């Protein structure tokens, strides 16, 4: 490649600047999380031990390694609270991703089949809420779901309910909040593949007498699978670690893992256990994240 041969100091800066930034602020912190997850909680500043001290030399290094423990991991593997919150997170993520597929597919399909001139506007309308604050969109649902909120008012007025129901602090509220917040992430990748689809394939199927539902099942659906996969990963991975939605809309019976991490860190000030939770969460999400990166780079870079 010509650009490769011509690469001078300017090009080196262009590459090394973001490279080092990400290495320092994204990669290095994970090493620190891993180290602290192996530490012990102490009442000190910082609240963990041992503290790595390169000045102590070889003996210092040896005592540093001898002080590392697996206590944090032992705790999160033995205490029910942690195991239940992992399971809860997986359950919420799996169920809401399925709901998102069911809700998002018809919307994406409808946009892809709408008149060409209208499509950019419809896509923008789907994206616009994503640009609005996540926190505000979750908060907006509190207005609707709370005990004296709009939903109860309407249901009571219609005579469907006789006494107000608490919709908040329930799993249903979490699912509503998650589906609402993540819908654009499901619709956009689906729309991108559906819109690129060659329509002559559908015409061919119709000409050969294939009924429309069967064309959809045999042609459209398989061709839209890459978009569906991207949408599923784009929703599933962040939902597992979601904090804001379950914290504001969910109940206090079973916490999701993001909430547990938050509580360990901010309320209990147990940094090693919080780090161990983060490492375990990352291990759980590693495979989906790698698959997602493959999809992303294939799509953006045209690499095989």
């Amino acid at each position, binding site marked *: 490649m010509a650009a490769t041969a011509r690469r001078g100091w300017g090009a080196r800066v262009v590459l090394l600047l973001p490279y080092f930034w990400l290495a320092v602020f994204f*990669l290095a912190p994970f090493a620190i999380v891993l180290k602290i997850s192996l530490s012990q909680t102490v009442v000190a500043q910082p609240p963990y031990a041992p503290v790595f001290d390169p000045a102590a030399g070889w003996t210092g290094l040896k005592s540093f390694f001898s002080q590392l423990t697996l206590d944090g991991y032992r705790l999160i593997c033995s205490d029910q609270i942690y195991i239940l919150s992992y399971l809860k997170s997986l359950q919420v993520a799996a169920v809401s991703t399925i709901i998102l597929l069911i809700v998002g597919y018809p919307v994406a*399909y409808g946009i892809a089949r709408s008149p060409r001139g209208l499509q950019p506007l419809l896509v923008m309308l789907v994206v616009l809420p994503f640009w609005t604050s996540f926190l505000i969109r979750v908060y907006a649902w509190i207005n609707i779901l709370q005990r004296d909120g709009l939903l109860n008012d309407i249901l009571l007025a219609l005579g469907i309910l006789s006494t107000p129901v608490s919709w908040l602090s329930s799993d249903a509220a979490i699912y509503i909040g998650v589906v609402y917040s993540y*819908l654009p992430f499901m619709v956009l990748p689906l729309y991108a593949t559906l819109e690129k689809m060659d329509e002559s394939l559908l015409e061919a199927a119709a000409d050969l007498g294939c009924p429309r539902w069967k064309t959809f099942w045999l042609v459209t659906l398989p061709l839209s699978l890459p978009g569906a996969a991207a949408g599923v990963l784009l929703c599933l991975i962040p939902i597992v670690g979601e904090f804001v939605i379950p914290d504001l809309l969910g109940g206090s019976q079973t916490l999701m893992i993001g909430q547990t991490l938050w509580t360990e860190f901010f309320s209990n000030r147990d940094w090693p256990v919080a780090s161990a939770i983060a490492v375990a969460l990352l291990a759980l999400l590693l495979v989906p994240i790698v698959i997602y990166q493959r999809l992303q780079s294939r799509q953006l870079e045209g690499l095989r």
Partner: protein
Amino acid sequence: MRRTSTFNIVSVALGLTFLYLPIVILVIYSFNASRLVTVWGGWSLAWYRELLHDEAMLQAASTSLRVAALSATAATVLGICAAIALTRFGRFRGRLAFSSMVYAPLVMPEVITGLSLLLLFVAANVDRGFWTIVFAHTTLTMCFVTVIVQARLIGFDRSLEEAAMDLGCPPFKTFLTITLPLIFPAIAAGWMLAFSLSLDDLVIASFTTGPGASTLPIRIYSEVRLGVKPEINAICTIFVAVVAVLTVVASLMTKRGAMQRERAAYAAQV
């Protein structure tokens, strides 16, 4: 065969209603005169007036805007560099590690990113506050800028750059005079996305903040935990209005850019 069936219209309409109804309700409630949020007491601007006297909220808003402007600008510079490296440098050493680091933050749960950045700042013995939030937000949002700019660079006609270089224009000048103006709409869109993501972030800011630096989402969150208040509806409405205006401006800019490019391409053919 492009038929707009009833089913398609209904599903798009329902989808958009679902997306917008809660926000519309929130906006309407922000003009409610009654202190009880859900009891309608007529139209009023009382909560907006109240907001003007809420020092803590105004302070938080100003912190948020400064953090967002600084981090979006830094993220745009870094994102442009990363996008160029990924689209133009072919297969360089460490490319896989680089692209992994670029794409991973897009889906990484915020609690993990926030916790790890905080532990980095603690380990480096940095005082936490305004600047640590700026650095954290730059790291998160530069990845979004990279993806947007990268998409534009891929659909880019390189013959213009080649023509300039063939005529003896040095690479750096070619970049400034040819490439940069052509990818400007993507850069502007990337900056605005970075800005609004930073303005929006609660989790990472909560981890990386220190005494005295509380951003708008941190402030709103602590109020919301205590229950729904009409003032919160008002500040949220202002927030939504600002973002809506920014988004419309961004999309008009991209559209104008696209139209100019088409016109230029047409002129070139003639």
